[in-house]
């Protein structure tokens, strides 16, 4: 019950934030240079009739406020409007673009998690060793290297020069898609992976020196338990927080990496829409991105709730 209440509160907060974001975005787009009509007209020379038709169709004659209300009332009915660039339904565009991006992000998250966390744990526990040094240097490079540069280098090294991976397309079916998206996923995963590894290393280092870990070892607990229940689980609290924040990196990274690899996801859609001032699409993408980030934070908090009894008590009493 307390959980439901808490969750309800959080969801209401997310809804409110989205509302605020949508107002902000609407305002920003409203003051963007270039008349909305022109964007809507695309490359066509306009006649007064088409102009009038367009103005009416998109409620451009009305005030900002009532334009926003129009948009909002159809948005809550899940009618997201049409792209002014392609005339496609935005909901259709999102449903076409989203799966690729989600796949890419999930794949990258998998790589980042599966490689980054154990690497950080190993580095933290074996701190000072050659392994630690190697991992530290590697993560330092990965954390600072721009994803588009890495993506570019990967593409030309493994896609073009060595020809191990396809250099274009998203593939069909799970395996083929994974195969096609491996290079982009790696490029996207590197920075978050390094961040996770560094965070895990730092917290593992801290946890491994804490009394409770020493006490566990002093009781002759098996290594598995000491590493898992003690080191990993206690290290995971800051890591979960970091993971929530890393979502921001993912979203930004997706835009650049999709651009480099020409992956038709929401990242390329974002760039295309920005460069053609396809305002309705930009607005919807902004909301989708905000929703992503807010959900990620919520998930991170839920993770804390699941992992940490102290937080659980604070929330649920």
């Amino acid at each position, binding site marked *: 019950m307390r959980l439901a209440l808490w969750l309800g509160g959080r969801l209401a907060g997310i809804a409110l934030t989205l509302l605020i974001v949508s107002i902000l975005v609407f305002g920003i787009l409203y003051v963007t240079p270039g008349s909305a009509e022109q964007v809507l007209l695309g490359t066509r020379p306009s006649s007064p009739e088409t102009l009038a038709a367009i103005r009416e169709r998109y409620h451009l004659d009305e005030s900002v406020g009532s334009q926003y209300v129009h948009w909002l009332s159809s948005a809550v009915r899940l009618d997201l409007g049409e792209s002014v660039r392609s005339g496609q339904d935005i909901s259709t565009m999102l449903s076409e673009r989203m799966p690729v991006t989600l796949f890419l992000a999930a794949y990258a998250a998998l790589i980042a998690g599966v490689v980054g966390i154990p690497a950080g744990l190993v580095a933290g526990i074996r701190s*000072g060793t050659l392994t630690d040094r190697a991992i530290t240097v590697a993560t330092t490079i990965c954390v600072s290297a721009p994803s588009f540069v890495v993506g570019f280098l990967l593409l030309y090294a493994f896609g073009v020069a060595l020809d191990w991976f396809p250099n274009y397309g998203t593939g069909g079916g799970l395996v083929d898609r994974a195969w096609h998206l491996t290079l982009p996923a790696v490029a996207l995963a590197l920075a978050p992976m390094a961040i996770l590894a560094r965070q895990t290393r730092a917290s593992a280092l801290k946890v491994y020196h804490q009394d409770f870990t020493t006490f566990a*070892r002093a009781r002759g607990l098996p290594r598995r338990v000491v590493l898992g*229940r003690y080191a990993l689980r206690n290290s995971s609290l800051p890591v979960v927080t970091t993971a929530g924040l890393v979502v921001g990196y993912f979203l930004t990274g997706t835009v650049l990496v999709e651009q480099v690899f020409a992956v038709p996801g929401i990242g390329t859609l974002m760039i295309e829409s920005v460069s053609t001032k396809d305002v309705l699409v930009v607005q919807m993408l902004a909301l989708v991105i905000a929703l992503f980030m807010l959900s990620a934070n919520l998930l991170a908090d839920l993770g804390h709730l699941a992992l940490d009894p102290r937080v659980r*008590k604070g929330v649920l009493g």
Partner: protein
Amino acid sequence: MPDVDPRQRADRLLDVEGLTVTHVGSGRLLVDGIGFHVERGESVALVGESGSGKSLTARALMALLPRGLAARGRVRFDGNEVSAHGERQMMSLRGQHLGLLMQDPFTMLNPLTTAGTHLAETLRSTTEGASLDRSALDADIARRLEEVGVVDPAVPDKYPFELSGGMRQRIALATALAKDPELLIADEPTAALDTTTQREVLRLLRRVQREREMGLLLITHDLAVAFSLCERIMVMKAGRIVEVADPATLRSSARDPYTTRLLAADLSFSDARREPAARSVDAPPLLEVRNLSKDFPRPRRLRRAAAQGASALADVSITVTEGRSLGLVGESGSGKSTLARCILGLETPTSGSIRLDGLELGRYGSLAKAELRQARGAVQCVFQDPYSTLNPAHSISFILTEAIRHRETDELSREEEEQEVLELLDQVGLPATFAGRRPVALSGGQRQRVAIARSLAMKPRLLICDEALSALDVSVRAQVLDVLEAVQARGVTLLFITHDLAVARKVTDDLVVLYRGKVVEAGTTAEVLDNAQHDHTRSLLAAVPTGEPAWLGGR
């Protein structure tokens, strides 16, 4: 070490020879070739001040030294050489044969798992334990908790943060004993506990040790505790064992000068005030606190829920007479420090008044500039933690000069300032060369003296000492105490906050006992301590270690 019959040697539970611990980076010797033994069922204490290497010895025995430190020497357990063991062999030795109980019950338990899980996972890590079914396991856990005096069936499902310090230390003890070790190494097992809880835990430890006929190696800084609990005392100093004897012998005829000094510094509770105050109780009050209350709002936000709030105060009234030093005693959480912080203006009281030197200090923020200056000059404080009481970025002379400048309305010349810095250092017994040093180069005791000098620079009428001695080693404590007495002799009134009744008896003229934010007893120190009225005062008194086995009950 006297020669011992090899046969007898082989029979010993633990036998250590030439154990050294070195810092690999610098080559510094932290434990310098010590040798000792523990017989079966024997309780032995390793006593020393901080930095003596006693805790490292314990860690070395368990092969749990921090990275960067290396151990050498011969350790035999039950006749078997274990110092050559690898990590895998050590793992089977730990817990089953050698148990370790650590200092801080707040950090020793995994915050994310329940008390029951700690026991269960430990029990399950043995071959017999692994085959236990759930109900047998639960029964075993209950039995073992009962052994340490925990009968509440809800406890196994509780997380460490939901348990009190004493309860945690009991859980930790039960966990350390879960695999029935033949030797328990207890590393300062009560140092982080309140005095009353300390006694309960020590009692428990002794009972369990005797019932199990288990070897006990107690590591402590507190001679009195060692005397009460152990049959044999080893005194350690700077990585060496300087003296081994039974309690009675050590007390009556210590051979090593260090031991003698230690014994002398360790205040006996019966020591009364060395220099009673000149002024009578009827002298005019310097500080009057009336009906002071302080509430702390409960933290609202999720992540702050676990944050520890300060202790509240409820309707506290105290009077400090000029020239008489007042002791404020109570356990942690009783509100002692909150009271001090209210007087210092670091907290704003919820209600009530604080009158000092004719000023109302309940609302520091509303004081005029001159009044504020007057208040600052009138009351100063020495804080508990010597390591963070001085700004690491500045030199000692900078720190003292700053205080001097804030005292003086007129600017002093550079020479005058320098002169006064040297005088201040001299007053706290530090050489003039310290002026140019930074805090990082100073030991804890030296830092605390600088902190006192800084307070004195303001020429205060009231000096609050908030647990100013409790973080110091006994020998250092005595020196700082001397400084404080000298300060008192110069006419400064002390408000002495402590949890240590022995210190209180020695330094204070009057005493106020705080319990859960309320004053439960007040009077002259002698009255309160010799004729305690309130239960809490009595239990505080009972908790002061006497150094006699009887203190822990039984023999």
